[in-house]
């Protein structure tokens, strides 16, 4: 993974010291909340329902075992011995005391971690494909460009007071695992017909109150121009984005209201004036950053396939796990391993300090000391020798992280909801748990196949409900929780926004409704058709009819 240099370390340490002084002044009564709030938010510190919450950046989802061990330590010593993996590949700690913040930031800085720009109207943590650098289907490693973007966007003076927050996501694979079209800027790295590397650039995607799929603003941008082109987009947004109404301030609204053609014209004109300036990335700069990513020391593969086959035959649970949790690695003899942090009936994305520590040790043993956080709130071991799979699985069983549900119906995305979040209107985790319990049977999950349920406890959509195949949105109706059901969303390369199906349900009703939707799908699907494919073929009607009865036109 990327090795930070002295500049990075100094920058993080200085900020930790600066914020420590600000906390000191606040506690001494010298800084009122209205002055302190923007400062704490710039460092990722929120005040939530029960206590302060600290959001810690995990740049493009990459974590070293040392960093994971530090998160275990910090969450155990200063929080309640667990953390929450977020849909932006970060970690949140829910029970932070303000008085502890200076120490916490020092601890995090010692492993190059921080919460800078994890909140506020600035460019947030860059997110990426969790299999970046190792996926068999990858065209080029997007982490190099994520790192350029991280450096460029960190404390960028021009973009520290944007109209609203700004999120960038990057994939280097045609199979989008980073939800790039649900971001303010989405970048898809590919090679053109001449074999040159470049990006298709999407702009104006986003969820929340006004969901949009990103629109293609440029079909091919040579990689050397990635920073100048993003700078041009941000400049246009910074100048024209609305500041009078926070609900209309995201770039998606600007793109929607102005039109993509006009936005393209403005961005291209701005880009022309800066494209060959200081932000141009010559090949030697790209090579320099590439060299700071420690190359994995792959070994010549042992022929362990016969042994693996025998172990799978002897251990049905291991067989199921191998079948579900592995992804194809570009290196023969290695596998990518998905580690589910969404066990049956438990809060999606929560991981205990003990599990963090154990996972860090396992990453050292079996994944070259590196892990990834996924936007689906799980973890990934990137480089596991296939001969180690059984030992790794046995170790995961010991720490309750062996759930085999990757891409299945119980692998839900879910925001913290009203159990923790000051913005939420309804709880989301209890509903996720109930749905998970309802579909706990593995054979039933396998029969249903690939399907994504995403759930949010408010319109801000941290649980990405609009792009779930089945989306659930919790709302407050006269001080009661009500859950709206939407179908047809997708966060992948075929991105789409789901639509509300009809009237909402109470907490138990929504679980039954999801079961009815799934049963309807099973009845009407054709061979090999996934849920989203069936929905796209038949539309809402069969599902509506099952849930609400026949409409007049179909009666």
């Amino acid at each position, binding site marked *: 993974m990327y090795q930070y240099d002295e500049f990075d370390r100094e920058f993080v340490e200085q900020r930790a010291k600066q914020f420590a002084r600000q906390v000191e002044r*606040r*506690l001494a*009564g010298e*800084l*009122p*909340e209205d002055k302190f709030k923007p400062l704490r938010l710039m460092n990722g510190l929120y*005040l*939530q*329902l*029960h*206590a*302060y919450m600290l959001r810690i950046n995990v740049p493009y989802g990459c974590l070293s075992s040392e960093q994971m061990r530090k998160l275990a330590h910090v969450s155990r010593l200063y929080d*309640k011995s667990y953390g929450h993996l977020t849909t932006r590949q970060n970690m949140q700690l829910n*029970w*932070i*005391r*303000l*008085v502890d913040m200076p120490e916490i930031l020092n601890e995090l800085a010692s492993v190059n971690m921080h919460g800078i720009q994890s909140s506020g109207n600035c460019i947030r943590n860059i997110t990426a494909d969790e299999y970046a650098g190792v996926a068999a289907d990858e065209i080029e490693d997007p982490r190099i460009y994520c790192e350029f973007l991280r450096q460029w966007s960190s404390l960028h003076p021009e973009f520290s007071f944007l109209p609203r927050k700004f999120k960038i996501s990057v994939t280097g694979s045609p199979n989008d695992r980073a939800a790039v079209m649900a971001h303010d800027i989405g970048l898809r790295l590919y090679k053109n017909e001449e074999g040159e590397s470049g990006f298709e650039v999407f702009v104006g995607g986003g969820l929340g109150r006004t969901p949009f799929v990103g629109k293609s603003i440029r079909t091919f941008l040579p990689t050397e121009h990635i920073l100048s082109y993003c700078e041009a987009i941000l400049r246009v947004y910074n100048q024209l984005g609305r500041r009078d109404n926070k609900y209309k301030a995201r770039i998606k609204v600007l793109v929607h209201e102005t039109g993509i053609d006009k936005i393209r014209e403005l961005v291209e004109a701005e880009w022309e004036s800066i494209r060959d300036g200081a932000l141009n990335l010559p090949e030697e700069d790209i090579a320099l950053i590439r060299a700071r990513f420690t190359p994995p020391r792959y070994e010549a593969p042992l022929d362990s396939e016969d042994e693996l086959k025998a172990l799978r035959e002897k251990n049905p649970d291991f067989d199921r796990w191998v079948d579900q949790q592995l992804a194809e690695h570009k290196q023969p003899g290695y596998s990518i391993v998905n580690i589910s942090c969404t066990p049956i009936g438990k*809060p999606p994305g929560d991981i205990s300090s003990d599990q963090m520590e154990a996972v860090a040790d396992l990453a050292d043993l079996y994944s070259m000391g590196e892990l990834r956080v996924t936007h689906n709130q799980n973890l990934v071991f990137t480089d596991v020798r296939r001969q180690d799979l059984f030992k790794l699985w046995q170790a995961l069983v010991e720490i309750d992280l062996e759930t085999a549900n990757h891409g299945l119906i119980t692998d839900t995305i879910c925001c913290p909801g*009203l*159990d*923790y979040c000051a913005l*939420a209107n*309804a*709880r989301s*985790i*209890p509903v996720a*748990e109930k749905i998970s319990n309802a579909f706990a049977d593995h054979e039933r999950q396998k029969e249903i196949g690939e399907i994504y349920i995403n759930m949010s406890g408010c319109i801000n959509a941290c649980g990405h409900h609009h792009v779930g195949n089945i989306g659930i949105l919790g709302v*407050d109706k006269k*001080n*009661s*929780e009500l859950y709206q059901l939407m179908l047809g969303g997708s966060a992948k390369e075929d991105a789409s926004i789901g639509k509300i199906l009809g009237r909402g349900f109470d907490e138990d009703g929504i679980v039954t409704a999801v079961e009815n939707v799934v049963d309807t799908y099973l009845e009407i699907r054709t061979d090999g058709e996934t849920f989203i494919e069936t929905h796209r073929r038949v539309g809402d009607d069969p599902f509506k009819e099952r849930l609400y009865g026949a409409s007049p036109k179909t009666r």
Partner: protein
Amino acid sequence: MPHVVIANRLRDGIVVFLGTSHQWVEKLSECSPAQSEAEEEALIRLGQEASDRQEIVDPTLIEVEEKEGVLHAVKMREAMRAMGPTVREDLGKQAEN
């Protein structure tokens, strides 16, 4: 409807309540709610003063009701703050009962 003031304590963010004893307490059950407009106004004023002294953050007057001798916050959000997350009964104020 009776009222108390709810806020977060500055130092640790913990939820605290202010009732007619005019003492900040950590449990709603230790609170005696305001029953009149005059008492409510006094609570609002005291909450603001504590905020100005930078002891607490975001003081807010909330409705409470007594059910079977136990005081509850009326709104879901405040009930959550008074108890703790429903998905982790080992955490928050509910864990201390």
